[in-house]
């Protein structure tokens, strides 16, 4: 394969793998409904907790934003990390392996498609949540906010690409592992309260997950006065760390894919189902 046709194949693979998520996922209307409705239910329950204890209205905004970002985390867990495991279970993985293309292109396509698919759902959650609960949101610095959001997504999906290689190696524990990473990550990343409440040490450890710093920075930029005493690090520092972790996760994803694929081949796990 020469350089030019190699790149063509790479990008065609990216587009081909992103297509089911960009176009196909919108066709299943019940899924679109559930993917918006389920996080909204959680958000609504937590909003009413804050209302019951008379929290300032900005806290309702924290919950709505956390709920929207939780849609990305769920997408990373269930549609990135677990994906190669599902492909193995349904018999598609062999086809990926024998196809004359890069596995990184497949992961990248999944990531880009997932980002698009989830952005539609997250936008709906933010819009409905903000209107329903009259959240007072004011973006103070739109370019930085956009930068934080996009960098968070790149780092988060880089982490998802890395995890999907790890899941290649897992059997039935894959879905349990994804379940395990839902609530605990919601807790330590401060999806529904500022992460600083957990203390500096836990917050620093939780910063290994891009969504922790991304959420904290976005809250600072959307609710500046309320976050003045509740922020973990400044938004600029968090953006710089996020950029670094994005690069690290993408690099690790590349290495992990090669490593775990080799290991799974050697141990004969690539085609084992129902394990």
């Amino acid at each position, binding site marked *: 394969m020469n350089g030019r046709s190699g790149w063509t194949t790479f990008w065609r693979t990216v587009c081909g793998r992103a297509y089911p998520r960009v176009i196909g996922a919108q066709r299943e209307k*019940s*899924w679109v409904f559930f993917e918006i409705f*389920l996080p909204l239910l959680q958000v609504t329950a937590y909003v009413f907790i804050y209302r019951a204890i*008379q929290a300032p209205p900005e*806290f309702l905004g924290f919950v709505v934003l956390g709920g929207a970002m939780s849609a990305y985390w769920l997408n990373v867990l269930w549609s990135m990390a677990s994906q190669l495991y599902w492909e193995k279970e349904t018999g598609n993985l062999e086809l990926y392996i024998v196809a004359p293309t890069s596995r990184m292109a497949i992961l990248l396509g999944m990531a880009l498609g997932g980002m698009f698919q989830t952005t539609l759902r997250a936008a709906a959650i933010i819009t409905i949540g903000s209107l329903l609960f009259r959240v007072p949101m004011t973006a103070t610095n739109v370019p930085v906010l956009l930068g934080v959001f996009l960098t968070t997504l790149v780092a988060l999906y880089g982490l998802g690409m890395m995890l999907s290689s790890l899941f290649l190696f897992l059997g039935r524990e894959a879905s349990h592992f994804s*379940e*395990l990473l839902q609530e605990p990550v919601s807790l330590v990343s401060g999806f529904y*309260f500022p992460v600083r409440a957990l203390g500096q040490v836990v917050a620093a450890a939780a910063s290994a997950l891009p969504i922790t710093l991304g959420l904290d920075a976005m809250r600072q930029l959307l609710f500046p006065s309320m976050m003045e005493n509740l922020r973990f690090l400044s938004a600029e520092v968090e953006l710089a760390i996020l950029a670094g972790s994005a690069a690290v996760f993408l690099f690790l994803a590349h290495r992990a894919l090669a490593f775990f694929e080799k290991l799974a081949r050697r141990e004969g796990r690539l085609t084992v189902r129902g394990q």
Partner: protein
Amino acid sequence: MQSDRRMHETWRSFRVAAWLGWQIESNWADPFVFAIYSLVKPLAGALILVFMYAVIAKGGVDSPLFPAVFVGNAMFIYVPAVLAGISWTIIDDREHYGMLKYVYTAPVSVFAYLIGRGVAKAAVATVVVVVTLLLGTVALRVPITLAGINGPLVVGALVSGCVMLSLFGILLGGVTLVTARHNYGVGEAVAGSLYLLCGVVFPLDTLPSWLGGVGRGIPITYWVEALRRALLGAGTPAFDGLSDGALLGVILGSTAVLAGLAVGTFRLAERRARARGLLDMQTMY
């Protein structure tokens, strides 16, 4: 004679399904790893509430609202476990293992089989509820004392509640039998809606009045309230007018109504699924 044989068949179906459910639930990991996986998720959910209170409420977890909220959240662990657990069996057996058609061709009581499959999840949920309540009592000063627990109310509410949740599960299982691709969301959506509408983590009066009215129409609301009273000695002001006996009466009455509804709906769905060839449907989702 025939009723004896039927009882025997029902008991055997239940027993074998419970054993099968336990194997599916637990044999993918060693007991220690399984225990960690089972405990971490619900404990993290409880701690989210703790930190929300710690950040905002005056007095943090010493806020007078907190014990009722904590106990409500702990007891609600049963709801998705039993309700979604039973309906999930339909998806798991039909789509994943491809065994549902064999269940129907064997001399098995389907209701006993489904409830048996839910037992493993209920058993795990019981351990998780106990650990969560212990965490609350020891670390968060939730005022549950052995002397203060109303034993008969706990047993009455737990037993009738588990029957009620199993019936909800069968109702949902019937819906699952005749639907495709929506299955994964249905259980979670129902459990999530109940979490919101039944005033599990906030007083029911916090909801807009029309939503609160919907909550008062759901028997799980009364079940959670009964368990709060049984464990804490007091419930939430929204149900001050109802005695413990009245609460149990509401739970038992609605369970009786639900029994007819659940069995009727499931039988109807079963007939439809047979007629449309859905019992061995594989949607590959």
